[in-house]
């Protein structure tokens, strides 16, 4: 039953791309999340409106549609705009890896925005007032008082976002990114053993989930080490 007829290597080749595209999207999602949370909590009405629209639109539209929109739609739009601007024929070609990383980063940035927003709201107001009273500048208070604690409040939520994100990388197979799902697909068709191959792929995703949960468990314990609990 468990023979992959010489196609076992596709799993390793695919999982590398899966992890790479997933991990590459994380910094972008975190940066957009912090920016979005700042926008949502800021007194500036324009920043609030932009951040609000961003999370509303991204969370209201399926990932698959956003991926297809970014990968095919934005490419064509850029092509048309550049062609008009330069007066010549411009060919824009975004490779699936870049497109995948950007799309996942933008989509999950909206989810991390909500996580960070909740974390900032969970901060003790008195500590921030104390920081200002002690003469800290806004950036210093942010860096020394807020950020270290936001981290503590945000990790469980960010962990959930990561678990969803890594599963969403499977959707990148529709734009031909050779990640785990796509590679499995190719092999399953070649060997005509779809169940065996997809089941093996699903177990690899499960393994990624299990390892992630272990890491997240530790990441949660670390910033909480100084917190007393009843």
């Amino acid at each position, binding site marked *: 039953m468990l023979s992959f007829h010489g196609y076992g290597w596709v799993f390793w080749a695919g999982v590398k791309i899966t992890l790479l595209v997933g991990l590459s999207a994380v910094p972008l999602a975190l940066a957009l999340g912090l920016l979005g949370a700042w926008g949502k909590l800021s007194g500036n009405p324009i920043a609030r409106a932009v951040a609000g629209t961003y999370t*509303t*639109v991204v*969370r*209201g*539209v*399926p*990932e*698959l*549609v*956003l991926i*297809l*929109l970014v990968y*095919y*739609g*934005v490419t*064509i*739009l850029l092509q048309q705009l550049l062609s008009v601007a330069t007066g010549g024929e411009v060919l824009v070609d975004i490779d699936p890896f870049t497109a995948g990383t950007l799309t996942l980063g933008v989509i999950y940035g909206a989810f991390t925005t909500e996580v960070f927003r909740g974390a900032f709201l969970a901060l003790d107001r008195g500590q921030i007032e104390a920081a200002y009273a002690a003469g800290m500048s806004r950036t210093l208070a942010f860096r020394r008082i807020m950020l270290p604690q936001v981290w503590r409040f945000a990790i469980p939520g960010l962990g959930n976002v990561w678990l969803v994100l890594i*599963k*969403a*990388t*499977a*959707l990148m*197979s*529709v734009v031909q990114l050779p990640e785990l*799902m796509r590679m499995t*697909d190719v092999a*399953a068709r070649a060997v*005509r*053993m*779809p*169940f*065996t191959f*997809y*089941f093996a*792929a*699903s177990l690899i*995703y*499960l393994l990624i*989930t*299990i390892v992630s949960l272990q890491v997240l468990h530790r990441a949660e314990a670390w910033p909480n080490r100084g917190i007393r609990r009843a």
Partner: protein
Amino acid sequence: MDLSVIADNLPRFASGAWMTVQLTAISVLIGLVLAVPVALARLSANPLLWSPAYAYMFYFRGTPLLVQIFLIYYGSGQFVPELRALGLWDFFREPYFCAVLTLTLNTAAYTAEILRGAIRAVPFGEVEAGRAFGMSRSLILRRIILPKAFRLALPAYSNEVIFLFQSTSLVSIITIMDLTGVGRVIIAETFRTFEVWIFVGLCYLVMSYAILYGFKRLEYRLSGHLRAGPALEAAPTEEALAAR
């Protein structure tokens, strides 16, 4: 931007949207019915009950929906003689059946997890009160635990329904003509990629928020006993009485 592609194909988009709504409604309903026994099994102390429930929930929550869809739709092709012998092949060859089956199993696993948390959050005093009244275990479950758990689960469950609604777009990959599937076909015919995906995205957006609004209304209705009643709100305040 050329919006005529949208206007010309409006009936097709509408039929796609109907398919999306239909898939969501069927999977959500069967999934909810399935989730209750799974959640109860998961909370049972008997390993023969909780371990299969745990494995099922962990598998369906830990793997991508796309893999699950492929596993059931394409994977069943590996067992044609067996499925034929059981008389099930006519179901598994239909993308629609496979889509509903996968979406149902997927949402049931997530819903069971939500229900598990909600059941555990039911205040023990309420269960104790039921026992004090001499209610049987099943009556306590039916009259006290489950109604309370459903109310507690509602906010998280509304998110799950919206996620499932959006996830139905994946069935377009196995050739089902839902909203996304219709979009793909129209793009193949007209090459208006940008316009079509923007429109399709807007449709999903509007429907997502309609679902959210529906759940907000439901939550409001179900929490009637937690709000001050109209009589209480209208009652004159101390100051008003003193001023009289």
